[in-house]
């Protein structure tokens, strides 16, 4: 079958799905939707539909990116514009269905149609969507990720078909011209990486997809794989063709079962369609893909550790040279790309390099997905052109900080990244500018913190993570992260020593400069950036034994405000160490030497008389 015939078949098969006047119910059923209760909706739907006498097809789709509004449900009918309902519960379901399929209206978030519907804005006009450019996420929530015809009908595999008709070297040139850089974090130019591997001489080469997304707070790759698995697969096949690989692996963490299921289905479908396997589209090019499940070691996201893990060895990075492009999996030339990098390729090849370069900055081309998390109004998955400012991302798209609190920091790049302070809110987010600020792009996690966050505690949290996740091979990472964690812990507990801050800077320098792989080389970033931008907070902890945000228990001092204390004795009763004394109806006092800072009095007092300083 030619590709044109496959396309025609797919368009016919998915015609009704894309017809918004064809009655249909779409449920966002990615992990975010499921976590918010999508499965309950799916379970309740048949009963409600039957009760209403409706015979409407229900489809599961991926993540629209508005995770804070999950579960999301999109309703289509022949007579009304399609509407998107948010935070749908089984309790509300009956009413929503009855109203929409009765009147064509509803208490919806937006319309999925092109124009506003009454007071309902079109989806793209929602504040969270405004300013986004969706390339990688173009199909998110718009197709059934388990239906390959949907993907093909939205131009899927067109990029591959075009690539296969080109000499492999030209495909590489196109990717180089587009300036696509690795979205896994380091930002190495993808075309250049391919070229190294293409030029390595070997009968056997491997193409590997790195889907070992391990940063806390990051879920871009998971969303891609769950919402649109074929885009990654297509990107992998294009890459394999470019470098001349006949075998590939998708290294995906076992904690992503839904992603794995959808990938497995995608691989089977693509093989059935002749777009994967032997002699793809009659081009003579053959490529086979296997899935390898990772066992949850953060370090296995590092290329050489990942290769060791696929080989069945302990997941530990090794020294380079040799680089994987020359000696990778089983000693053969190997190319490794991250999920999002690969998901960019179908569109890049379909529309050409010039369309790709329309977005982004001269050195950081294209768009980037980010996972918004932490103290931010609209959590979820967004995609913006590189170079978009932090302000735009956090305040315009993300809706700013909840509860009227002040913005204090944003952590980019996960535990390897850094904390960026409010002064840099106008920073355009691209590879270079983030690095200059002491952070990294990383895979795209953005954790927002408000004024109530203790930056020393944040650094301690991230070091706790990297210390555990260090593979233990090289000394600075194994022992240096441990030292940093020990010092940070003692600072937050109030038993720090003079000079600890400078000692941490020295240790951090050695860990960064001396570590074997990216994990260690970036692990001190949270410490370094928090000291750089919030040194006063450290000094309060060390010099004054005080945690300005009252987060670090070990530094808290509990006192009783005699002006508001009524002498009700409630606190005396809950205090486990009898640290509180005082006559009934007279102001009480706390003996700080006996107090163990358990917070019981604070939580018990009805008069806000207990003060934490």
């Amino acid at each position, binding site marked *: 079958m030619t590709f044109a015939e496959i396309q025609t078949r797919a368009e016919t098969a998915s015609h009704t799905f894309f017809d918004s006047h064809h009655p249909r119910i779409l449920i966002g059923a990615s992990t975010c939707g499921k976590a918010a209760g999508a499965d309950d909706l799916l379970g309740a739907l048949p009963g409600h539909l039957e009760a209403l006498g409706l015979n409407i097809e229900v489809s599961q789709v991926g993540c629209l990116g508005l995770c804070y509004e999950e579960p999301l449900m999109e309703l289509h009918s022949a007579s009304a514009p399609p509407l998107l309902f948010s935070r749908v519960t089984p309790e509300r379901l009956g009413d929503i269905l009855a109203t929409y399929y009765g009147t064509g209206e509803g208490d919806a978030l937006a319309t999925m149609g092109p124009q506003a519907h009454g007071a309902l804005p079109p989806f793209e006009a929602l504040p969270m969507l405004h300013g986004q450019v969706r390339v990688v996420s173009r199909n998110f929530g718009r197709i059934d990720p388990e239906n390959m015809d949907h993907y093909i009908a939205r131009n899927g595999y067109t990029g591959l078909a075009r690539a296969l008709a080109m000499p492999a070297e030209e495909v590489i040139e196109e990717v180089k011209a587009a300036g696509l850089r690795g979205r896994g974090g380091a930002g190495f130019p993808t075309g250049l990486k391919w070229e190294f591997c293409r030029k390595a001489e070997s009968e056997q080469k491997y193409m590997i997809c790195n889907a070992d997304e391990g940063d806390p707070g990051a879920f871009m790759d998971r969303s891609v794989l769950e919402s649109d698995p074929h885009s990654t697969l297509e990107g992998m096949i294009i890459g394999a063709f470019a470098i001349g690989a006949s075998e590939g692996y998708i290294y995906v963490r076992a904690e992503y079962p839904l992603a794995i299921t959808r990938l497995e289905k995608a691989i089977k479908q693509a093989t059935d369609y002749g777009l994967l396997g032997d002699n793809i589209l009659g081009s003579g090019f053959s490529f086979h893909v296997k899935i390898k499940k990772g066992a949850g070691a953060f370090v296995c996201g590092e290329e050489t550790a990942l290769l060791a893990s696929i080989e069945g060895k302990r997941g530990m990075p090794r020294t380079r040279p040799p680089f994987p492009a020359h000696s990778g999996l089983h000693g053969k030339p190997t190319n490794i790309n991250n999920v999002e990098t690969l998901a960019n390729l179908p569109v890049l090849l379909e529309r050409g390099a010039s369309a790709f370069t329309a977005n982004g900055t001269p050195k950081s081309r294209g768009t980037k997905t980010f996972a918004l998390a932490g103290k931010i109004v609209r959590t979820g998955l967004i995609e913006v052109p590189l170079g978009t400012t932090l302000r735009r991302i956090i305040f315009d798209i993300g809706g700013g900080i909840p509860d009227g609190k002040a913005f204090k920091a944003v952590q980019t790049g996960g535990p390897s990244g850094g904390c960026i302070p409010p002064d840099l809110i106008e920073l355009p987010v691209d590879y270079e500018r983030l690095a200059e600020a002491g952070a990294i792009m990383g895979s795209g996690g953005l954790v927002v913190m408000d004024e109530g966050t203790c930056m020393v505690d944040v650094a301690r949290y991230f070091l706790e993570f990297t210390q555990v996740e*260090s*593979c*233990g091979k*090289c000394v600075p990472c*194994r*022992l240096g992260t441990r030292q940093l964690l020990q010092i940070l812990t003692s600072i937050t507990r109030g038993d720090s020593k003079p000079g600890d801050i400078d000692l941490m800077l020295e240790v951090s*320098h*050695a860990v960064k400069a001396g570590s074997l792989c990216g994990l260690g080389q970036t692990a001190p970033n949270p410490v370094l950036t928090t000291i750089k931008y919030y040194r006063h907070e450290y000094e309060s902890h060390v010099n004054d034994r005080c945690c300005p945000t009252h987060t670090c228990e070990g530094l808290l001092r509990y006192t009783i405000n005699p002006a508001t204390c009524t002498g009700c004795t409630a606190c005396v009763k809950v205090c486990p160490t009898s640290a509180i004394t005082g006559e009934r109806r007279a102001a009480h006092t706390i003996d700080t030497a006996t107090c163990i800072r358990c917070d019981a009095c604070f939580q018990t007092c009805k008069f806000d008389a207990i003060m934490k300083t």
Partner: protein
Amino acid sequence: MITFSIDGESVSAQPGDTVLRAATAAGIYIPHLCDSEGLEPYGACRLCIVEIEGRRGLPTSCSVPVEEGLVVRNDVDAVNRVRRMVCEMLIADHPLVCLSCSANMNCELQDVAAFLGIKGSRLRRTVRKPILDESNPFYTRDLSKCILCGLCTRACHELRGVGAIEIAGRGFDSRVAAPGDLPVRESICTSCGECVDRCPVNALWAKNETVPPTSLTRTTCVYCGCGCGLELGTRGGKIVRIRGDKANPSNRGSLCVKGRFGMDFVSSPDRLTVPLIRRHGVFEEASWDEALDLVATRFNAIKAEHGADALAGLSSAKCTNEENYVFQKLFRAAIGTNNVDHCARLCHASTVAGLARAFGSGAMTNPQVEFEYADCIFVTGSNTTEAHPIAAMSIIAAVEKHGATLIVADPRRIDLTRYATLHLRQRSGTDVALFNAMLQVIISEGLADDVFVERRTEGLEALCDCVADCTPEWAAPITGVPAEQIREAARLYAAAERGSIAYSMGITQHTTGTDNVMALANLAMLTGNVGRASTGVNPLRGQNNVQGACDLGALPDKYPGYQNVEDADIRATFEAAWGVALSPHNGLTVTEIVSAAGCGGVRGLYIMGENPMLSDPNLNHVQQAMEDIEFLCVQDIFLTETAQMADVVLPAASFAEKDGTFTNTDRRVQRVRAALSAPGQARDDWAILCDLSTRIGYPMAYDSPATIMDEIATVSPIYGGISFARIEEVGLQWPCPDAEHPGTTFLHADTFTRGRGKFHATPFRVAAEEPDSAYPLLLTTGRYLYHWHTRTLTSRSEGLEAICPPVPIEIHPDDAAQQGIADGDIITVSSRRGTLRANAVLTERSPRGTVFMAFHFHEGAANLLTNDAVDPIAKIPEYKVCAVRITTAAVTDDAVSPVQEKQKNQGAAGLITTPA
């Protein structure tokens, strides 16, 4: 040569070197803890970081290959600042017990800290209590001292191919562990000690190393034919440390468990220290004069009455070349008989016979280290990892590092099969059928190297006729190997660019031993796999100096240098050299001497360092012969089973107490050096022999072994260019005809020793004794890693005894089930020649129908059972095939063969009386 600079100093290096190794070679110290010779770069300690002009960051010098013009900065602040902090981190996590640590003054972490000027650590100390694993008998591990350099785990994997330990856990919790964090004793550790040797901080240390040595002696190991270089550290008259000699080309610093930990025998209280004379049935201590005069008198009397051929001598493959030379000279020149042989008769006589016929020379064609670069290795009848552990390292490296194909043809599932592409499990005794079928495939499929055959060989027609009908289908029912496997093996070997054959006793110890060897030679010649590096037919020699004992003429038909005693011209040369008339007839072989002793043909026997009372087949027959002989003199370091039957026992020096040379399986003549003085009155073997010769009436006197070697060089052309001066640093491989000759790495380069290589027809014959209804199982014998031959040496090591106690018999579970035998049962094993008790070990290592025993144990001597039928040409006995039955039935003490009982009842000390 590549030239680059470190801190402005110009350094030369070979392409492929790393910056670190080039610096070390140039005497420049770059701090490091995780790099070691023979291992891949690891990059974990991060101390060898340097700055390189034009490169980002601080690359590790252990992983950066040298390049022309590289500008490296090592001892500079920017680098040392990071190193200091890394070192402080290590120190903060390391117990500060330097003064009481066995590594003190010899600790690489101390070296690094000293270089960096570390004054203390400002970091938080982690308190780790000693985390001891003392389960292994030879070494202790304290994880609290471990710096996780990974040298131990990598040495275990990369070098030894064992993989008993790995790094477990992550981050700070990372630790070296056996699977499941079990004690290392419960892992597959072979106790080679490579990990102990490599540990830079003594987190692993040998239990027997209590004090550092005061003196170091480079010498050669006394166990197997690998010929490993040793560095013996001594102090107070004892060996206190053993290391591999890194400069030795055969072992490059590696050792096996016996070499590293099995030298307790040297200082054993059981050592013989005074001459003993049997009087009225018991041994009495005697003076050297008394003892030697008695031997000389008795020998002269027997010679006067019955002729010189009534005397015979068994020389020793454990003794030096010089001692073997003097021994055969004693018998040939002083006594006048060629009745001199040694245990090579029992191991590689068929090799000497077979390869001499095919190639003209009976030695290993290529050195063992060349296995590493073969692209196909065919190992048959060699349990290499146990019997030649160091040679096995090169075979494993070929597979693991360079992707070579390994074909193992062995009835047993030996450890090497873990690395094999193909394991052919032929029935014991059917090797010729297997090889003939492989030859048939190569010929019929046109896979032969016609050019090589045409240019270098002769006699192909005879071979073609012989194997024409030997199709794999013909061989399959005989050998039990599927025809397709035989075809595949033939194709793989024939397709090899550098095909190498390694074999040992599984091939030679058969009544078809010579045919087996010639069939292998046929394979090599037919495919052109001889005369180049990493090819050849390679008989792995068993004893440390069995090659040398053969080279020096401890053979009844050869003078030193494989010169025929029946050749009048050659004999004339020796008569001139030695100044006496020599016997013109070939002498008796070991097996013939034993038979002749039983029937009065041989009346006086002199045994130096051999123990036929355990090593020879059909021991009941041997015992009878030893009892019947008129006069027996044994010269040894222990009162062996054989020595206990002697009339005179002479105490000799061990290898650690004397000078000389051993020739290893590579044909490399290497120095043995005295590290200690011999205990009591024990003397060097050569000195005893010279003294005796003089008393017999043929004065022999040498001032040192070096002088003996000088004499050897004049009479043996293959040793013509060898002298102690030339082999002071590294040995020489014979043939080495003159003082300028560099030695010969591999044989038969341009021409075979005999001219053209000769194909021999080797029609298949069945073994002498096949299983039948009365004795339904096939017994095959061999060795274990942890013991040496008749256990005279290894039984003095508590550790070796603990790991490998007597007396296991390996039985396939199905065969055991038929007899109702469970694992660990004490069972009775009988053949037509004897009966013994053994402990059943149920294992699929043994194929169905075959049981395996090692011949080490006097408590259950396998050779009570074995068949003394011999190969018609080489006279080697068929140790590898005999018929036995096994039963759980309790055996009466009467039924157990006497050798065993004698051992049980009489301790060695009970036999000796000391004059008041």
